[in-house]
């Protein structure tokens, strides 16, 4: 299978008042055509920054220091700004966490969608209008002609996110990066948006890079998942394998920490400490200060992603508990 998007050993740093923040430290993953890939992790794990880096829209004080981002075989980190311009929207679209601030408040929904359609297709006025109505229908918004006339603040959060998705489709992108698309929404609305994404993947053949902190969301929508910690992928593989036969102590800890009815009356297993703030690079395995199974080697050299079962390359984990060198 040829990957649509490959992120290889990506490093991103930010210069801030407090010092240099190492946000992404050698992240590697790929998204295949037509799949939903979940990038899951807690705050500060670098998942959102990695996505901004893919599209090269990092804020001014952030920059890519190493690594490659291959889209269709082209390295986006080396592309000129004008080439990126042609990739944004037309090839890769992105939606954000808070739809209410992602829509321009002083233009109607219709004019915002139509502007994108016209820019990318040069269609006639009438065809543009038609296409905009189709798109709003495609994201299951009721009464598209009325929505076209509405200003963003007149729509609910769920509807705004649907509009954002319609705008992502308007440019004809093949890959959609969805950065916590449902975090700002209520649970019942969250489900509908996720279902819409799954639906679009099936119908339009859209590939989706879904960023979330919610393992439940991953379980219900993603084909494959990468677990990020301190700017690196610590475990990656098909969703059901990662979530059911999880190997990395961090993944195990995350799942054990989820409160559920079954855990009732018992203490939750929790990971001690809190996520690192990125102001320094943790030597060795980034998880070692919080890991219950920490060994001497973990403090020295960072582990590499290796297949969990030899001969089955899909499910990989970066942990010395499973690497052949330390297994003996």
């Amino acid at each position, binding site marked *: 299978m040829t990957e649509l998007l490959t992120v290889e050993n990506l490093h991103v740093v930010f210069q801030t*008042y*407090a*010092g240099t923040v190492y946000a992404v430290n050698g992240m590697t993953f790929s998204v295949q055509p037509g799949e939903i890939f979940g990038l899951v992790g807690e705050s500060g794990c670098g998942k959102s920054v990695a996505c901004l880096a893919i599209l090269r829209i990092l804020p001014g004080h952030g920059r890519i220091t190493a690594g490659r981002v291959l889209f269709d075989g082209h390295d986006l980190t080396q592309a000129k700004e004008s080439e990126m311009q042609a990739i944004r929207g037309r090839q890769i679209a992105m939606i954000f966490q808070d739809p209410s601030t992602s829509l321009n408040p002083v233009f109607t929904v219709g004019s915002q969608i139509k502007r994108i359609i016209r820019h990318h297709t040069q269609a006639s006025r009438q065809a543009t209008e038609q296409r905009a109505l189709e798109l709003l229908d495609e994201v299951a918004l009721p009464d598209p002609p009325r929505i076209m006339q509405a200003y963003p603040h007149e729509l609910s959060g769920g509807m705004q996110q649907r509009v954002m998705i319609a705008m992502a489709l308007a440019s004809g992108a093949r890959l959609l990066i969805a950065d916590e698309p449902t975090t700002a929404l209520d649970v019942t609305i969250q489900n509908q948006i996720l279902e819409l994404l799954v639906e679009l993947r099936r119908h339009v053949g859209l590939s989706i890079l879904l960023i979330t902190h919610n393992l439940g969301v991953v379980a219900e929508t993603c084909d494959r998942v990468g677990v990020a910690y301190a700017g690196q992928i610590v475990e990656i593989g098909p969703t059901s394998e990662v979530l059911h036969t999880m190997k990395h102590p961090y993944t195990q800890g995350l799942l054990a920490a989820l409160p559920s009815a079954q855990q009732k009356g018992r203490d939750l297993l929790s990971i*001690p400490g*809190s996520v690192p703030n990125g*102001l320094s690079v943790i030597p060795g395995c980034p998880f070692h200060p919080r890991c219950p199974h920490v060994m001497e080697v973990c403090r020295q050299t960072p582990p590499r992603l290796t297949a969990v079962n030899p001969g089955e390359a899909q499910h990989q984990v970066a942990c010395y508990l499973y690497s052949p060198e330390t297994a003996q």
Partner: protein
Amino acid sequence: MQGAPGIEVSPFVEPAPAATYSEWRLIWRSFRQDKLALIGLAIILVFILGAAFAPLLTPYPEQGRGDPNILEKFKPPSAAHPLGTDYLGRDVLARVLYGGRSSLSMGFLVVVIAVLIGVPLGAIAGYLGGWVDEIIMRATDVFMAFPSLLLALAIASALGAGFTNTMIAIAVTWWPWYTRLVRSQTLSLRERFFVEAARSIGLPGHKIVLTHVLPNVMTPVWVQATLDLGSAILISAALNFVGLGVQPPAADWGNMVSQGRLYFIDRPWFAGAAGAAIFLTVLAFNFIGDALRDAADPYLRRT
């Protein structure tokens, strides 16, 4: 389970976030990167010291205070009179140094009075809300509906010309800006939970305003006050220029320009020196204020 102090808790190993500096130290660290601001600081220092030690710095202190010296009038700059002499023969440098006493102190006092009136009113309006807020805000509306120079001019002429009256007149037009600023800061502060936490433990309102609200709204007030020092000096110079403010023979940069303007085409030095003094001072305060605002920006946004 053990006794009260030792109740069982999950193990906890977590390093504290690294940098722990106070807000003003961080602001200063960023501020001192700004060359223009440092130049501004130097200019202000020179004028303040010049005004404070005027009697020691000039050989003609009595001329600085206003004594005429008709025989020497209209002398261009020379070694004896580095900035020349004015239409009454007074040493212009001495006049500028003494004029700084009036101009600088009026600007400074106007801002102090405006802050003293405006800040408490803003905090009260923002914290209490309701009809108190409504009344205070409508009052600011009315005062801000007047162009401030004009209102100050009308009030100053009603009170009669003079340093104190002019200062009061300007301050009256100035406080609403601080009330507005502090009120909006207070409103956003009220959204933050520590104020609600203070209410939930039953801390009385005046204590909440004094200990939690006011200290947290002052950073933007200091920034604004620095910028306003320039504007206050500008407006007080304007009132002195039209004949309000300090009365001759006392010197003020504003009335010095006014007195010199008729001779300006042929003998530009004495109106020019005073005009340049105003320009440099206001410029310096703007440099400082801008740098301070940029430096404090992360802290202003935080609230």
